[in-house]
């Protein structure tokens, strides 16, 4: 056995890979195929479903829930841009100015996310309540009008997503920025580059892998998120995740839920695969390793 493995080093590799990959095959790929099949069912919860290859559900579901799809992409995109604008200065400071407090700062950025996702979001509901911690003083000072509210608006949903996914952006950015040798920035300065030029021409391009990894890690879960919309939003800010969740867990309409879920996955995968083609699969994993 040992001799065999020594003579065939690839055999070791496959032996190491087999259990895990098999697992992913059975519990990631097979369910995906299954979900596709379920989307082609017709019937109802009480009388049962049967597979009828009802492909028309796709155009139907897409047109019926077009608003929620668009909203998800808009909210997800807005949150991604916001996490970048908030996360970049943070990552920049920690990478270049952190000094010996680098690890402490990094820890302070990550630590809040050891709290339950739901509890964090519910805390925001408390903080942002119409007569809560933030708005009550502002209202009594007359800074915002009496009827003003944050909760149950798209702003609250986007803010919630931004908050919850901020580390997914900040950490890859930090990793990328940290790799930039300070000598390069010094060189730029020696060449009389202004701060802006230095940032634009040196820092940003070198941080690009982090930007891309961070954007993916934020955008993908953000588009599929429904907890923020559910807890902080209104019926007017429901995302596609809310629809899928309601179809599956409240109505028991598995075909429509599956079709919507499949469309969401396909849309995202197409994007990712195009990206994988451009940067290569190793890079994809490397970038995500933050």
């Amino acid at each position: 056995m040992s001799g065999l493995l020594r003579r065939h080093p690839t055999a070791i590799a496959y032996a190491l890979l087999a259990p895990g990959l098999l697992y992913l095959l059975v519990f990631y790929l097979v369910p995906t195929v299954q979900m596709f099949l379920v989307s082609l069912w017709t019937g109802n919860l009480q009388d049962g479903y049967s597979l009828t290859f009802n492909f028309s559900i796709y155009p139907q579901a897409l047109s019926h829930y077009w608003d929620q799809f668009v909203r998800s992409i808009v909210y997800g995109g807005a949150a991604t841009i916001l996490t970048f604008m908030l996360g970049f200065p943070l990552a920049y400071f920690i990478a270049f100015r952190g000094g010996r407090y680098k690890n402490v700062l990094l820890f302070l950025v990550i630590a809040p996310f050891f709290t339950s996702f739901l509890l964090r979001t519910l805390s925001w509901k408390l903080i942002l309540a119409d007569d809560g911690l933030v708005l009550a003083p502002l209202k009594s000072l007359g800074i915002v009008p009496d009827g003003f509210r944050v909760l149950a608006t798209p702003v609250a949903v986007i803010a919630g997503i931004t908050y919850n996914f901020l580390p997914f952006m900040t950490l890859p950015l930090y990793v990328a920025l940290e790799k930039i040798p300070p000598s390069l920035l010094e060189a730029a300065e020696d060449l009389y580059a202004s701060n802006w030029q230095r940032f634009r021409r040196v820092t940003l391009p070198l941080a690009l892998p982090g930007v891309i990894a961070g954007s993916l890690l934020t955008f993908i879960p953000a588009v599929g998120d429904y907890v923020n919309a559910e807890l902080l939003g209104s019926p007017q800010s429901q995302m596609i995740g809310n629809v899928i969740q309601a179809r599956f867990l409240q109505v028991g309409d598995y075909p429509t839920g599956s079709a919507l879920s499949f469309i969401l996955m396909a849309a995202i995968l197409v994007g990712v695969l195009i990206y994988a083609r451009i940067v290569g699969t190793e890079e994809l994993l490397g970038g995500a390793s933050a």
Partner: protein
Amino acid sequence: MSQDHDPLVDRITQAITRRHLLQVSAAAGLSAFLAACGTAGTKSPSTSASAAAATGTPSPTGTPGATGTPGATGTPGSTSSGATPPAGATGTPAAETPAATETAQASQPLGTPATSGSFKMATWIGYIDVGTGKNKKDHPSLIRFTKETGVDIDYQEAVNDNESFFASNLKGPLETGQDTGWDIVVLTDWMIIRLIKLGWLETITPMGNFPTNLLDVYRTLEWDPGNLFAAPWQSGMTGLGFDKAKTGALTSLSVLFDTTYAGKLTYLTEMRDTVGLTALKLGSDPTTLTQDQFDAAIAAITQAVKDQIVRQLTGNSYVEDLLRGDIVLAMAWSGDIQGLVVPEQSKDQDFQWQLADEGGMLWTDNMAIPKGAKNKGQAETFINWYYIAKNAAQVEAWVNYVCPVVGADVEIKKIDAALATNPLIFPTPDMKARLHQFVALDTDVASAWETAFTGAIGQ
């Protein structure tokens, strides 16, 4: 997925013909309820007599399980007196059915209450009394139940709305013939009808108090003749819950649809409540709601969502939203405001519940035993125990809903005389005239309407 039932289920479902279930239930149920609601309120002398007789019979102490002598409670003597129609029953307009009820009952031997073991019950919040002060997390009536019967109860407030509870807790296991883990579930009439139709409920073996002590009005339900499957827990009304300190007194449903409180009000995720109230506002009768009237109601809801009048659609969580001050007005269930919101309101809040001028919805939440429940005997023991007037009254004095147990009105006076005139527990004739049950729906229509409703609320 196959819908094959086992032979027993088929036998039971055949006993109740499908047509009966679908067509007659709502109309019959409503008229019967409204007619016989009087039993609780206006005819208290006669019902109290029957209550006294009924509670006295099964066991002298009024605590069937506690005697520990199963023989005593199961004696033929108690059977015959248990089956005696309550004194008030013959006087009610809808009295044709007691005969059927008795036949059904007579065909079943009385069960024996359990004296040990435990069972698990899924219900809604605000449906049980709570202790005071240090014991504010206890439920005194449940503690007494365990003391008297020896049966432990795992009481879980696990139901937030009927459809999600059905989809997440019942459908999966029952479809594959497995135990759901729940021994009693408390669900609304229309969901119980669905479960009966699917053959997913156990029959409740009578133990002397149930259905003997069930108010007549509930004995004439077309969808459960003989009260084999559902033991009513509470009936309630859907109306306006509001912070009077912010809104002043409200009496009309139109505030739910105009911009006065835009963004500061919620609807319910229960389609029958929200569509029902909307239909009433539009002048239609939910009891006989037609497709056109339903469509009009959906259009009104869609518009209210679009105009951002509705902040959210909620299950029981409107209670928290009211307390937090995020909303000042909600479609609310009658007992919740008094039982859950008022005790926690701050100094500048003054919560009220009001049945609107246009009317309100009437519904009943029932205890039922899911098919294959492991602790059926213990569950039945609890149902039997609850149907003793004194025990129901203890729960009622706290929850502020309409009680289905004969004689509870007399018992409740012993706790607090003022409660006997509480319109939430004993609706006035004027209120009864304004209450409506939602039309019974065929499976296809029900799912089409649910879909239209979820569409209107953004999902």
